[in-house]
């Protein structure tokens, strides 16, 4: 299988202290990968560093063997929902069309083709009826779906999603994961920053355990085991495994 994403020696620091330290890993194409780890482990930072949204101290990123810059159009991104002000004067369709801007290039205006594409993506997330709705009038789950539709409109090969399940209801979460699995079936690679340990085994075929460094990465059944989790989460997992042990680590 081809390597979709290769990260070598990535180090990111905000103020002196590195948040992500000498991270190296490879992700094979056509996988759904969950990035998990305790708070402050650098999960979002890792994604932002790969996407060059924040400056890195060192590190080399290659996408399908080419440099990150040359592959930008084949990358899709779902930022955290709270990262934008939803009281912006625009509607759902407009936001999804933003996913086409990268393909459009400078100075060109989005037209009929972009609108059709955006509607198609809204349909995939079940939001066609909300196309003309002002975005502040959408619920949290609907806003998340809009962000997902925008990423779909990017028609990428590799997707980065920063906590797409935060603040969405169970039905939306299931709908989103269904969609991500379909993407995977089509040979796309999807990396998801994830919090809920109880769903890791169900959702992801690969798992990355992150705590400043990559503790483990590989097929979920090999990586998502008590020993490695303990190592990643430290003492904090003790509480978790007491209450949820059966569900979690079976």
């Amino acid at each position: 299988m081809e390597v979709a994403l290769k990260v070598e020696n990535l180090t990111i620091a905000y103020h002196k202290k590195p948040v992500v330290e000498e991270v190296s890993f490879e992700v094979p194409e056509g996988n759904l990968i969950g990035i998990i780890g305790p708070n402050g482990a650098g999960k979002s930072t890792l994604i932002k560093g790969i996407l060059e949204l924040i400056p890195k101290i060192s590190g080399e990123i290659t996408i399908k063997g080419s440099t990150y810059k040359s592959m930008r159009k084949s990358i899709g991104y779902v930022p955290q929902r709270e990262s934008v002000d939803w009281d912006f004067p625009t509607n759902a369709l407009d936001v999804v069309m933003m996913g086409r801007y990268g393909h459009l290039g400078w100075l060109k205006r989005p037209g009929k083709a972009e609108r059709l594409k955006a509607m198609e993506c809204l349909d995939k997330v079940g939001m066609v009826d909300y196309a003309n709705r002002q975005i502040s009038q959408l619920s949290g789950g609907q806003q998340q779906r809009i962000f997902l539709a925008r990423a779909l409109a990017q028609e990428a090969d590799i997707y980065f999603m920063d906590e797409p399940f935060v603040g969405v209801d169970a039905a939306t979460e299931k709908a989103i994961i269904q969609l991500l699995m379909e993407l995977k079936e089509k040979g796309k690679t999807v990396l998801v920053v994830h919090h809920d340990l109880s769903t890791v085994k169900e959702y992801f075929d690969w798992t990355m355990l992150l705590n400043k460094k990559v503790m483990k990465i590989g097929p979920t059944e090999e990586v998502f085991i008590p020993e490695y989790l303990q190592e990643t989460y430290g003492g904090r997992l003790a509480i978790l495994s007491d209450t949820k042990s059966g569900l979690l680590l079976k």
Partner: protein
Amino acid sequence: MNILDIISDPNTRWILLGTMFLGLSSGVIGSFAYLRKQSLLGDTLAHAALPGICVAFILTGVKSTSFFLIGAALAGLVAVFLISVLTRYSKIKQDAALGIVLSSFFGFGIVMLTQIQQSEYGNQSGLDTFLFGQTASMVMSDVYMMMTVSFVLIFTCTLFFKEFKLLSFDPGFAKGMGLPVGILDYFIMMLIVAAVVIGIQAVGVVLMASLLITPAVSARYWTERLHVMVILSGIFGMLSGVSGTLISTSVNDLPTGPLIVLSATVWFFFSMLFAPKRGVLSSVWRRVSLKKNYSLEQDKRKGRHTS
């Protein structure tokens, strides 16, 4: 004087044209500043222009609008640079950084201004008019410059509308897509500086920010579409420019700049009160009628139960 008299005066006509274009362009670029939560940036850049103007005067020794404008633009650049250095390399947040730069630049400007006023040729410099603006000092070439800069501003915002929109809504996504967000940031700031610079003569450094912010805030009340908001904001700015100028010409000795700003404020209050959906009256009305409907229904239900 009635309005016809005012408009028939060629001098006033020129000033009207200038303030009209000023309002239009600052309304347009102000929309993006407001949506990017950079309202205070406009204020800082306007205040920062004062030392720039003073330095230009000290260096050249003449009162020349174009030199002043170059000075103001350079000071704006320095201010922008300082703000980004402060926020990037210290733990100071942007609002505090803006506050520091605004007040220190303005204080520096006032000190220089006082020095110049006290010097032998100071009184003729007319620099003090830049504090609150003085349309009477505008000549035809000033108006030409205002129109040219306005045209460039509006043209640029139309050309890069898509990019500015994405940058205003979701800069992280824009960056991930490969847009040069840092450069675009500076670019928008330079456009704001340009609007400030053409507004200094008419409205002055102290009040210029309100022409950037107030029309945009007013426009936001009326629409949920960005392009409509930008156009409306331009129109509100233009109307403020025109009505402020007309009022100041018809009533003797009232300053034009502050009147333009007050006109913009009147439009703001009007929008805040009467805008459909987002306006205060409409939301009060919505709440009252909701309550009424609810209690009516309750009554009906009770009535059914008792009968």
